[in-house]
């Protein structure tokens, strides 16, 4: 039992990074802009956070720089897709290359830079004693995780219960209507692409300063950015479902890494104990899982009337009727 709890608890950590990235992308997509560059932005964030933390000894500064760097990168995508009205898919892919490339270039030699002061991890006094949930959610987690817990309901509230949130949703669903009532569609989209960048940077910082501290070139993010994009669809663009998906995925990922370790699980012999054969199939699970999640999500979207923000992926051109 202990082993399972440890795995799940560790999963929350990875899940938090995923959560930030996923919610960032949800913001961007709800304003109508698809940003496939999440992986590039995350990597840039991870690299910047670690690099600044090493050089200045201040991890919080690293987080800040990470967020700004990724945010800045995202604005290139915003300019190309919103102002120049180019294809959002290709631009996002280009952004991934760019972000990855810049991270590798600027992060050269970083892995030998030495250790860095990490951000604090701690437990929350009373909550940690709740049976089962306590050890998983509130024990010895990085501060990022707790930030994530608070961030989640705030995000939901912002999107669904505030005026800026209403504007955001309108711009993504029916920009012509928003425009006709005086809302600046272009400015809104630039803003939320930026927010997406900030959060992707935060996600990267979470990884390099807390979850898997260090800089391991491209392996640092290991494809989490792409998974975040898939999770957005699974989440049906809703923060709570995004959280569920992120934590579940994080747990799954840790499970795969850690399940091969202990010889005994729950008092029984562990069938996965360092079995080279099965290990690889376990590795496939998260990705297969994402595909299945996509199929479910797409079918659901086809069935129900909720789905992607209606204007997602289309540049807004004034004067074009019918959206």
């Amino acid at each position, binding site marked *: 039992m202990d082993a399972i709890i440890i795995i799940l608890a560790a999963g929350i950590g990875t899940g938090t990074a995923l959560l930030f990235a996923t919610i960032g992308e949800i913001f961007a997509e709800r304003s109508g802009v698809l940003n496939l560059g999440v992986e590039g932005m995350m990597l840039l964030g991870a690299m910047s956070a670690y690099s600044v933390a090493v050089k200045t000894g201040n991890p919080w500064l690293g987080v800040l720089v990470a967020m700004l760097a990724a945010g800045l990168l995202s604005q290139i995508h915003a300019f190309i897709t919103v102002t120049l009205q180019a294809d959002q898919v290709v631009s996002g892919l280009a952004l991934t290359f760019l972000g990855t490339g810049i991270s590798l270039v600027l992060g050269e030699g970083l892995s030998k830079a030495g250790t860095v002061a990490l951000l604090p991890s701690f437990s929350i006094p009373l909550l940690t004693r709740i049976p089962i949930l306590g050890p998983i959610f509130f024990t010895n987690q990085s501060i990022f995780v707790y930030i994530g817990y608070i961030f989640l309901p705030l995000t939901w509230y912002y999107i669904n*219960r505030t005026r800026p949130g209403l*504007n955001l949703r309108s711009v993504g*669903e029916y920009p012509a209507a*928003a425009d006709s*009532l*005086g809302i600046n569609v272009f400015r809104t989209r630039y803003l939320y692409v930026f927010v997406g960048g900030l959060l992707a940077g935060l996600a990267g910082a979470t990884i390099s300063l807390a979850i898997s501290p260090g800089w391991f070139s491209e392996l640092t993010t290991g494809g989490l950015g792409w998974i975040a994009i898939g999770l957005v669809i699974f989440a049906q663009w809703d923060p709570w479902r995004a959280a569920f998906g992120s934590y579940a995925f994080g747990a799954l990922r840790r499970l795969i890494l850690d399940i091969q370790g202990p010889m005994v699980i729950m008092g029984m012999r562990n069938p996965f104990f360092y079995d080279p054969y099965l290990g690889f199939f376990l590795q496939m699970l998260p990705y297969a899982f994402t595909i299945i999640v996509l199929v479910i999500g797409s079918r659901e979207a086809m069935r129900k009337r909720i789905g992607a923000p209606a204007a997602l992926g289309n540049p807004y051109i004034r004067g074009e009727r019918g959206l």
Partner: protein
Amino acid sequence: MTNEMTKASIKETSQPLMVEMRGIIKRFPGVLANDHVDFDLRQGEIHTLLGENGAGKSTLMNVLAGLYRQESGTIYVKGREVDFSSPRDAINAGIGMVHQHFMLVPSQTVTENILLGLDKPRFRMNLAEYDQIIADLGKRFGLEVDPKAKIWQLSVGEQQRVELLKMLYRGAQVLILDEPTAVLAPVEIEGFFQTLRSMVKEGKSVIFISHKLQEVMDVSDRVTVMRKGKVTAPGLITSQTTRQELAHQMVGRDVVFHIDKKPVVPGEVVLKVEDIKCENDKGLPALNSVSFEIRSGEILGLAGVAGNGQRELAQVITGMRKCTNGTVWLSGEEICNHPASFSIQRGLAYVPEDRTHEGSSPNLSITDNVIMKNYRKHPISNGWMLNVSEAVNFAEELKNAYNIIAPSIKTPVRMLSGGNLQRVILAREISGKPALIVAVQPTRGLDVGAIEGVQRLLLAQREAGSAILLVSEELEELFALSDRIAVIYEGNLMGEVHGENDLDAIGLMMTGTPLEQIRKGGTETNV
């Protein structure tokens, strides 16, 4: 005039002016939409703007509502000169417009839509509170609607109420409604008129854009008629005019330029349409029971204001839309509900309204566009491969025969002018010697030379034996080309006539009177 009517007219002419528009000129590339237009609106009246498509009514109202800026002319609201640079300015001055295409976000609630873009509430949206306010507002004006409902759950009539509430909530004193009954089911229309009357009782003034004479007579106090950018009848008092007069002012009489139309003896029936019904994109009935036939060598013109089912009719015949009842025969074979390619193989040619999105592939070359129908056949096709030299020859021939002006046949068609693009489409469709041509608004947006070219082509096909269904908003065009003219109104055929002498009859049919009634001499009874 009775005493009552005198009293009524005195009352109407003595109300203060809410809105005055003087000498409005508005130009678009290639067309003078508003040509020195004067218009005024009195307080507390319902004033209709009547005219066909392209008359300039929507443009004029868009200017008033702040969407367009006039080239010259002045607007006064309540006596003060105003200058609107955006819809927001107009709304602040108390003028709100409800467009034909609703500007509502489908996935959001009524309240959210109404509150969109306002300054209050600033950050926190306590929807429950506003739900109540909006419900009360709705009750006051007879525009009841559930504030918590999402727009996609509402009927079109209810959505329209939301648009109205949106304007009323913002304090609009003048409401401009663009073809509001076009989206309503017949049962909803009377309720809608009640709403208008109660709004007027509350002190609002309404401008109503329409082409439906019956409604105009039923609900409006005054009527202004426009045609081709000019006002032909300013502010007539409805109770003092007749449908005959209004219809006459609407269609008028223009210089008809003559095209040589040779007499052709019609042959076999090519297209037979019997009792077809179909729905439009919103699920409402678009065609109610349409029947007609066209013989080879004949052009049947279809007149009618846009939005009365013409588009759907063309789509049913060409196989792009399901018909829910009735049958369509092409040269004796049933083609209803078969895919387009089925009919194409049996000699159907389609010249659609939307040249760029439906009729052509914008980034492909002229050659690629003209072989769309025959690329599977010899000699263009050579087994699996395309015989490019044959395709090129074919394209060159067509380019010369149809006078397509372009740098080369490799030019992507999005670079072509409207006229040339239309020639490409016609070349493709007509060169196959089709049995039936369905042409929808084929000369819209073209310059004079191109228009003449297209019309000559159609006449040539008529002589060659094709049957042609010509859907057009230009009456002169219909007169010049058609052998018979049918008029469609709200999904029904109002009747068929033979030519220019029946101009007034056509005008009346376009605004809702069936032919039998006109022949009997009655024009005041309800449809």
